[in-house]
């Protein structure tokens, strides 16, 4: 396993990162042996910025984020380093992790339909963290909950607190989830594909909402997505993951202007363009490698359209190709 050097993966920024992940490895034991699903990920999230993590299903993006919060099932093996505000939290005890969750790092999940408990009122669920974690009285927590619902754009919040989740639409539930994620005022909010289950207009509203909240509250956001189109509008920096590792990392403009890794270019090529008629959308042929048996060279090589001999033998390191722009590729791509 050749891990990229820690220093090379940091973003060009003077301030210390709020969340710093180094050489994060997650593996699950499967019937066919140990499956390393995250294989040495380095990430830095700075205060107030939006970092997008992009990759297809199974690329390890969600698993990495769950590992940060210690929410993976107990049979997952997690190694590496996760620092929040300079403090090592990976491997910290359950009480430390509980204190971290929601307060330092909040999370919003993918499917708003299943993220809310169907038998509890919205009020009970929004006030839960406020009461349990901040020790607010029921009265004060309720007032704060109404403020939070108003903040995420729910009309008549005071009355809505007594509703049950099934009385809310998908978009409104996702707003509630965001309100809950922000209720403890975390320094970092991890949003795990929060718009995937929503239709495009609602998706746009949620994107605007998160950006607006971020401007007002200064929360750093890690936006996990498989959709480069969504990410383009909101991210400051983009990390592209493939088969458990980072294959490219760049400021958002550089990534879209000069994508270096063939996988990134494949993803960008697969985006539909408005007004352009194409018989078929471009796709990347093949499937990501099985984590139990990855190829020896570049893990993308079997699917790569510009594969060279060297790609099959050596696993490329993450190297700097521009300012703040890293790519795990051997090929020199003309912009």
């Amino acid at each position, binding site marked *: 396993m050749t891990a990229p050097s820690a220093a090379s993966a940091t973003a060009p920024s003077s301030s210390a990162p709020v969340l710093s992940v180094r050489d994060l490895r997650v593996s699950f034991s499967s019937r066919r042996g140990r499956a390393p699903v995250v294989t040495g990920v380095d990430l830095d999230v700075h205060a107030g910025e939006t970092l997008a993590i992009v990759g297809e299903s199974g690329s390890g993006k969600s698993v990495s984020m769950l590992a940060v919060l210690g929410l993976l099932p107990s049979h997952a093996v997690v190694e590496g380093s996760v620092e929040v505000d300079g403090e090592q939290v990976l491997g910290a005890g359950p009480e430390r992790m509980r204190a971290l969750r929601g307060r330092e790092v909040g999370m919003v999940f993918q499917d708003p339909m299943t993220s809310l*408990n169907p038998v509890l009122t919205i009020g009970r669920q929004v006030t839960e963290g406020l009461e349990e974690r901040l020790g607010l009285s029921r009265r004060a927590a309720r007032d704060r909950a109404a403020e939070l619902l108003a903040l995420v754009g729910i009309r008549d919040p005071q009355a809505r607190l007594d509703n049950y989740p099934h009385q809310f639409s998908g978009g409104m539930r996702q707003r509630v*989830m965001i309100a809950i994620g922000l209720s403890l005022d975390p320094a970092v909010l991890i949003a795990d594909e929060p718009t995937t289950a929503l239709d495009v207009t609602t998706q746009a509203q949620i994107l605007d909402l998160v950006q607006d909240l971020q401007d007002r509250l200064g929360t750093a956001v890690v936006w996990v997505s498989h959709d480069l189109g969504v990410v383009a509008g909101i991210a400051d920096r983009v990390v592209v993951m493939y088969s458990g590792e980072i294959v490219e990392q760049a400021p958002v403009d550089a990534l879209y202007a000069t994508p270096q890794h063939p996988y990134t270019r494949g993803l960008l090529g697969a985006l539909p363009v408005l007004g352009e008629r194409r018989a078929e959308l471009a796709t990347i042929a093949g499937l990501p490698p099985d984590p139990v048996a990855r190829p020896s060279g570049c893990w993308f090589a079997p699917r790569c359209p510009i594969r060279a001999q060297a790609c099959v033998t050596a696993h490329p390191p993450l190297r700097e190709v521009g300012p703040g722009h890293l790519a795990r590729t051997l090929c020199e791509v003309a912009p």
Partner: protein
Amino acid sequence: MTASSATTPPGPDSPEPAPPPAPRSTSREVARALVSHKLAVFGLVVLGLLVVAAVLGRTAAPYDPNAVDVLGRLQPPSLEHPFGTDDLGRDVLSRVLVAARLSLVVGAIAVGIALTVGVTLGLVAGYYGRWVDDVIMRVMDVLFAFPAILLAIAILAVLGPGVTNAMIAIGIVYTPIFARVTRASVLSVREEVYVRAARSLGVGDLRLLRLHILPNVMAPIIVQTSLSLAFAILSEAALSFLGLGIQPPDPSWGRMLFEGRGFVQQAWWMGVFPGVAIFVTVLSFNVIGDALRDALDPRQRSAIEARGASR
């Protein structure tokens, strides 16, 4: 140019994504479902009468259930003694009515014990899994392996006969059922996103179990409670029949059945009426349990929901 592949063939719209989880039954909806279930109404009426008899106790009985009348012994049912009298001249109707209280109380407390212990063990086993689960559930399996009545007799042999011990014994016997039912539901509920979401907020295990998991596993537990009440009352009758439960002279259906056993030829009413009381009580708890199962089962309910509440 492959024109054929350019357009997708016109077909029916893809089915809606996963429908949202069926909204939970409110207590009012469950009540409505119960009333529309004919057998359940019968069960509720019988149960209501039993509860009235149990609450009123001796005041409802026309005679003192323990008053001996040697001259009036073994009298067939008449207007004076609608259920006849037993071998000591005691009024069978009064004894059946008074016994209702003891039977219901014993059944309720025994099931209460089983419910509390079983649900707690099931929650812990299902939520923590691994060795905790193994230890708890293997112990439950051992208890489950014994025939219910034999296990109760064995426990009473250790504790000694009596009403209190009978309740404890029946409680222990029915604990594994509750543990299993609870654990099975917890295993699926703990994987729900909302449980993970609550954990991502730093909610503690105790609160998570109490507020997020328990309410979502209640439906099968409620059904099991109703069914278990029927079996607990049956077990109590069996234990009293064997002289291990309610002790004479307190009336008990099982004990009366035992006493009537020797007089089947001369005085059928001594055994038949307490027997019918047991039968009707157990039946009513069973039909209520069945009706509750129908009312609380989200899969059967989703069709009704689709028609009614699409807001």
